[in-house]
């Protein structure tokens, strides 16, 4: 006990020092910025300083001991384990996109807040303490020992299925994280996207390659601190500015009514009506062209060609000729292509023709049925995110790393506590930033637009992150004239609030830390599944511990490069499937994990049926409904979006476990003893 306490005190000392140095670093940069250091340099300094920091922690905690490498020696104190898990959990999506999502969709995006926090109840009550009591290395370890079966009763088939599910889910997720690393690095340091990816990769590798779970745990604690500071400083600033109270979680309640008032005012504003009517007219024009296909396509093509010819004949300026050439080159090549493109443009215009929705109103819909469908989708999404949280291997793996079962329970408490420090401020940031934009940007003069708009608008020329154009030519900004991408909100908040550029760099470093920490945990989950479960448990059970760790490190390297390569291809299809990873994890892993503890009768056949059944039902529904996978929304059951397929997958998996178990012989006596053992306290 005293040794644990001493260890805890020493760790606290290290991190206190880290915080002091970090504050010093921020202060120094602020001074340097005042002295006139260029923006790009500040961006560079933040990127490199943090990456070097993570790599250093990795080098310091390098190890080749099996227990240290896989589960950090099972001696991480609950508080620090909670912090590390929180960093593991807060992905690029939570840090960068969630506040933007709330800004754009209001109440409906709160499903993510509820789902991603509520899932920890399932982790704490149903899974984590029992996994810790079992005290092995991976999730497939537990499933194989509990269900047995296969050659020699070692649970080979169950293990292989669990490994498959772990890899599919974690790989989809890790590609998205590495993609985000590339985006942030390229936006803030001006390097190429792929170079950005490999820079981030270098830091991930040094850390998890050398130190395994031990290395990433201590890095993640540092990353959590950076994430927290980076998120809270701008939010607290905005909160103090608009609500005279620096505690955003408490203060934004007083801003909400003011925002609602402003929304109502803007919805009724005649100038706003004018702009929206213009969008409606353009959308109607597309509708006409769509109705007149294929004649309208040919006509448009002839028109574009003629415009180019006249530009050339009349010897117009070079720029005009170029524009005409570009228009012709960009013109859809086939009728189908034209239909898809015009449909997309029409729906984008129609969306902009809508009046602003009240931020706090739940499930706005034109009809009762539409509103109910949105409520059901909200419920389904919350369900999938919760059960997915309780089945993500890289989170569950963390319950092995604490010194005791009690510490694991406390560690889940700390995890949720640290997650909530961020998650309770995300809706606050969305409301405060919205209020800021609605009151100070809307209605301002076009000649005096703030600089952040042109800065962020110019970063991606093809799909601008933010675009403000004077549609009705009155020289004033209308709300309907602002097109903003959700991802820019958090990154631009410091500038929206008028903070110095150092804070922008800090926010970027926070986003990078969020993406890197999650990627670290996921890569380790994948390579552990491959090296421990496939190589050691199935291929070569006689391997020496030294060999096992070496194999694990090599596999980590290989997986990291494959994931980085996949991310550098900018795979739109994988990115759109990230949300689906939760449904897949929940359907495949949750039923056997929980029933394994709470129902002794669950057996080998049941586990296999549950994993395969749950996964297939989930996958079938996605393929049936997801447009990216060739499905149609008309085929949906109860209007549920494909991302929430887990709402059908989890019950199907549960049912499959129960039915298949009851139809086959009860499990062997050894499994009964194991269940009694993991249920009993230490």
């Amino acid at each position, binding site marked *: 006990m005293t040794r644990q306490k001493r260890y805890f005190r020493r760790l606290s000392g290290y991190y206190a020092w880290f915080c002091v140095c970090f504050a010093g670093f921020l202060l120094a940069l602020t001074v340097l910025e005042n002295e006139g250091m260029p923006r790009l340099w500040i961006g560079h300094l933040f990127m490199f300083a943090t990456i070097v920091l993570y790599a250093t922690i990795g080098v310091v905690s390098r190890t080749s001991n099996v227990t240290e490498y896989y589960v950090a020696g099972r001696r991480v104190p609950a508080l620090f384990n909670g912090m590390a898990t929180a960093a593991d959990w807060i992905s690029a999506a939570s840090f960068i996109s969630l506040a933007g999502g709330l800004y754009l969709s209001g109440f409906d995006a709160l499903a993510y807040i509820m789902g991603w926090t509520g899932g920890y*109840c399932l982790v704490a009550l*149903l899974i984590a303490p029992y996994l810790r009591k079992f005290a092995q290395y991976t999730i497939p370890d537990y499933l194989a020992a509990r269900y047995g079966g296969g050659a020699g009763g070692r649970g080979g088939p169950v293990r292989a299925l669990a490994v498959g599910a772990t890899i599919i889910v974690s790989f989809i997720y890790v590609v998205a994280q590495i993609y985000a690393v590339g985006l942030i690095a390229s936006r803030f340091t001006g390097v190429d996207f792929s170079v950005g990816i490999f820079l981030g990769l270098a830091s991930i590798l040094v850390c998890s390659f050398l130190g395994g779970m031990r290395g990433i745990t201590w890095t993640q604690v540092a990353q959590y601190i950076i994430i927290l500071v980076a998120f809270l400083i701008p939010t607290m600033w905005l909160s103090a500015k608009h609500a005279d109270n620096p505690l955003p979680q408490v203060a934004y309640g007083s*801003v909400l009514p003011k925002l609602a008032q402003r929304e109502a005012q803007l919805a009724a504003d005649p100038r706003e009506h004018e702009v929206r009517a213009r969008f409606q007219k353009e959308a109607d024009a597309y509708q006409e062209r769509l109705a007149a296909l294929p004649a309208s396509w040919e006509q448009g093509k002839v028109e574009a060609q003629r415009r180019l010819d006249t530009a050339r004949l009349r010897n117009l300026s070079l720029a005009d000729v170029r524009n005409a050439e570009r228009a012709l080159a960009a013109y859809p090549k086939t009728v189908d292509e034209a239909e898809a493109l015009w449909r997309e443009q029409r729906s984008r215009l129609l969306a902009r023709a809508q009046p602003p929705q009240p931020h706090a*109103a*739940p499930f706005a819909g034109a009809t009762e049925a539409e509103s109910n469908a949105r409520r059901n989708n909200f419920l389904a999404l919350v369900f999938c995110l919760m059960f997915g949280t309780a089945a993500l291997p890289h989170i569950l793996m963390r319950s092995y790393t604490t010194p005791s079962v009690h510490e694991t*329970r406390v560690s889940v408490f700390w995890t949720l506590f640290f997650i909530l420090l961020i998650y309770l401020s995300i809706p606050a940031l969305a409301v405060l930033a919205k209020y800021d934009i609605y009151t100070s940007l809307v209605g301002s003069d076009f000649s005096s637009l703030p600089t952040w708009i042109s800065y962020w608008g110019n970063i991606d020329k093809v799909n601008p992150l933010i675009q403000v154009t004077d549609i009705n030519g009155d020289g004033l900004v209308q709300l309907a004239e602002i097109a903003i991408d959700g991802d820019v909100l958090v990154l631009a908040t410091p500038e929206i609030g008028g903070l110095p550029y150092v804070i922008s760099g800090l926010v970027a470093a926070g986003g990078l830390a969020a993406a890197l920490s999650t990627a670290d945990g996921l890569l380790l989950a994948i390579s552990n599944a491959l090296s421990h479960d496939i190589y050691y448990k199935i291929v070569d059970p006689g391997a020496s511990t030294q060999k096992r760790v070496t194999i694990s490190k090599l596999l980590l390297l290989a997986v990291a490069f494959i994931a980085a390569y996949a991310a550098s291809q900018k795979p739109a299809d994988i990115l759109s499937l990230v949300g689906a990873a939760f449904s897949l994890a929940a359907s495949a892993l949750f039923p056997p994990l929980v029933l394994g503890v709470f129902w002794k009768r669950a057996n080998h056949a049941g586990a296999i049926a549950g994993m395969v059944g749950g996964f297939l039902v989930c996958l079938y529904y996605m393929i049936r409904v997801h447009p990216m996978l060739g499905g149609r929304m008309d085929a949906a059951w109860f209007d549920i979006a494909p991302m929430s397929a887990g709402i059908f997958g989890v019950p199907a998996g549960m049912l499959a476990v129960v039915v298949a178990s009851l139809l086959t012989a009860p499990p062997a006596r050894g499994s009964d003893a194991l269940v009694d053992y993991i249920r009993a306290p230490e």
Partner: protein
Amino acid sequence: MPPETAPPNEPDLERQRRLLAARATHWRRTRRLTFVLMALWLATGFCTVFFARELARVTIFGWPLSFYMAAQGASLICLAIIGIYAWRMRRYDRDLARTMGNEAGVNA
């Protein structure tokens, strides 16, 4: 794994029976606590969403109640559930350890 050596004499058998009973009680209490807390978790999550439109008419400190519950309330209740679980489970574990210790003491 639990040791499964069958003790030969009467008092030892009696003792083992009592230990098993103590462990069964511990598991029953764990299960009951888990069930109650999961019911609370389900009720908060479900009611917050299902009755959101009705709750939106009630306002507390500027927040419509449904917005507050979805953005903060439900998550804070989850945190409380996990905290209560860790606290109660520690008590149950200690109770069991004490019973076991007494048994060992009687036999020593």
